């Protein structure tokens, strides 16, 4: 039985941050459950374990509401990747990333990867009306064809362009004191997605998981983590004191 709990130990941590109502939970829900549904505003943070190949990736889906900011640094502690999410139809949601959320990432790993994600692309872009072609899983749950556009809904004005997101990425790196050249290029880590149609969602998560792989391997090779592992020493003790078994 202890076997089961040990295999569940997360290898790496990914945190999703962003203003309320930009669709953080929906993105994760689309990725893990393959469907879109009306979610209720998240309280605190929700913790998920995602089996990815031989690795366990833990994902923190956090609440966007100011009310829960007190916990932000706890969610971000030791994160290998932070997904900064905004709503392409809402300029303020991009500004909030810089104003409120960036400082929460101070506790993340020094080599933390930042992704800038503009969600709700289906509202502004016809391209986003189908799930991305790379989604390799057969997901019949999604209405694939461009039919999701309700007849009466015209495309909304896109308030945040891709260039704005790229510019934010540059500022994030500057905030972190990182050399732009030494980091991942913006085109790799800036995404526009739609949790509603599934557009780019798999690409986002799979790309990020690929990118954090070195971090996992590094952690494994180092062997030691900064957190005390309660299980390993107990294991040792048990073998030593074989008499009481």
């Amino acid at each position: 039985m202890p076997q089961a709990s040990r295999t569940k130990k997360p290898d790496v941590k990914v945190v999703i941050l962003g203003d309320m109502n930009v669709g953080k939970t929906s993105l994760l829900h689309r990725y893990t459950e393959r469907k879109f549904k009306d979610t209720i505003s998240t309280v605190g943070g929700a913790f998920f374990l995602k089996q990815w190949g031989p690795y366990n990736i833990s994902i923190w889906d956090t609440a966007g509401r100011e009310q829960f900011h007190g916990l932000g640094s706890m969610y971000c502690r030791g994160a290998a990747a932070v997904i900064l999410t905004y709503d392409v139809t809402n300029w303020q949601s991009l500004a909030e990333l810089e104003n409120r959320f960036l400082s929460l990432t101070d506790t993340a790993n020094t080599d933390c990867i930042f992704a800038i994600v503009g969600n709700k692309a289906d509202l502004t872009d016809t391209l986003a009306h189908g799930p991305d072609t790379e989604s390799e899983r057969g997901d019949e749950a999604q209405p694939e064809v461009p039919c999701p556009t309700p007849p009466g809904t015209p495309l909304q004005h896109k308030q945040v362009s891709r260039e704005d997101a790229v510019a934010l990425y540059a500022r994030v790196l500057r905030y972190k004191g990182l050399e732009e050249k030494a980091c991942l290029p913006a085109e790799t880590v800036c995404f526009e997605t739609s949790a509603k149609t599934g557009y780019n969602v798999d690409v986002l998560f799979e790309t990020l998981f690929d990118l954090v792989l070195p971090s996992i391997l590094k952690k494994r090779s180092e062997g030691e983590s900064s957190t005390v592992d309660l299980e390993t020493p107990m294991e040792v003790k048990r073998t030593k004191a074989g008499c009481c078994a």
Partner: protein
Amino acid sequence: MDPNSQQSGNMEEVKIFDPSILPPCLDQIDLAYSDSDVLSENHCVNEDHRMPSDPEGLLDSADPTSEESNQPQEPSSTDMQKLDIDDDRPLCAGGSETDSGKASEDSALVDNGQDDSSEFVVTVLARGKMEEQGMGMKGASSPLCDTPLGPPSHRNEDVTAESWRQHRKHVFVLSEAGKPIYSRYGSEEALSSTMGVMMALVSFVQSGDNIIRSVYSDEHTVVFMQRGPLVLVSVSSSRQSEQQLRNELLYVYNQIVSMLTQASITRIFEHKKNYDLRRLLAGSEKILDGLLDLVDSDPSLLLCAVHCLPLASSLRDSLSQILQKAITPNLVFSILIAKNQLLTIVQEKMVIDDARLEPADLHLLLNLIGASSAFQAGEIWTPICLPSFNPDCYFYAYISYLDPPECTVCLVLLSTDKEAFYSVAECKRKIEEAMQAQNALNAISKAHSYSVSQVGVSDLRHFMYKPFDVPDNHRQLTQFTSPEMEAPYGSEEEQTRLLDLYRDMHSRIHSTSRPLKLIYHVAERETLLAWVTSKFELYTCFSPLVTKTCAINAITKLLRWIKKEEDRLFIRYPPKYSTTPNPSKSSRDGH
């Protein structure tokens, strides 16, 4: 007995009512001046349907000295007569008959008598406001008109529509500056002028060193409650007592506190008087919606008691032991819930010495969990305040379902350490493993509420039994037990009707002016008997043709049955653990 004499006896409490002081949702209010002529006239008008709160006439109360006996006192012949009158008393869900009897009897618009002149000013002031508001409301709501009406989208309701006014109970929350914070139906924006009028009423009465408490009209009761910088208003046609409505508002207030803490609400408004609290509560409307649905449908909130899932005591004990063993420093409560009912709760020793967990806090916690688990696969970690426990501090709640994807069994662990997620999550793994080993989930899934037929008393249709603290379970969570609502209370309407009857009995038992110990009430389609002693509070519902002797015998049998089943129906001895670091090293568990 003459109702009028009773009314005139209470005359000093009755204050002027003018329709214009009410928001426009309350049209058709009868004028009721503090004039006994008008009142008696009103009463005549309503002669054909007697009111639930009609004093004396409808109920007989046992002598306090006889309360310990198992035999409710036989009523006198005059009482019987009155019971007959009661027979045709309509008390339907959402009934809209006028309630002047009630108004005349318990109404107290304003604490302390106010002289007429100032009331007149209130009236004039409010009338002016209302006209202004009529304009404002139309303008504000017009963009909403194109949104389709649907039961789930209360937010989009057209607040000028008749259907909006027809809602049985409205609840509004606003800030002292008159800024809307929450409305149960319709968007807060569209209601900002209505809420402005409410605030005008509150502050006007306040300026005269008074507190506005309630306004009664024929069809509606409006209850005001101020808590710190927040004002809560209930506009209800449910004919509940003012006290009950006030209690519901307190739940709403406390649910807001559970998300923000009282200290931070106060701080925010001290800092900025006209702060828009919706900024912090955005997304929490559904939690408040859920709470108000619960208030209307779940008697546990009325009784301020927790409903446990009936469980063999051996199973409950072994579940408690599992929780007791999975601990980590700073863990204070371990709670196991199935089908929204409590399975077991284990508390930290020191905590339980200091203060106990109030049922109200548990209700708020359960509502928060029920209304907010966006998708139930993950593990939630969130700050939450338990207002009755400590309104100014947060606990950190770990919430996880143990049986995905069904998600009926939920584990809640409360810690005082906000960084403790991973160690608390580890406790969950231990609990999960131990439960797997004992096949406990399977046993829990077989547990279910019971049928009243198991009691084996014919004519008994339903009951609610709430034992009080007695020395041996002192400091224990107040609980109650109740069977499933079965035919003829299968439909939602009938359940609401029965709950309304219970609420009415409850309000009479707990009336501040004239509390009763025992009520035998013959209604149109059932007979109810409510009885409160120093040991328990009991509400029973019988078929309409039951005789009084028969009902009394039934209750004796019922009490005997409950005594026999006690261990299964209640958590008898809530277990404890100790997680504060101490010399005994008991926190090193698992071995």
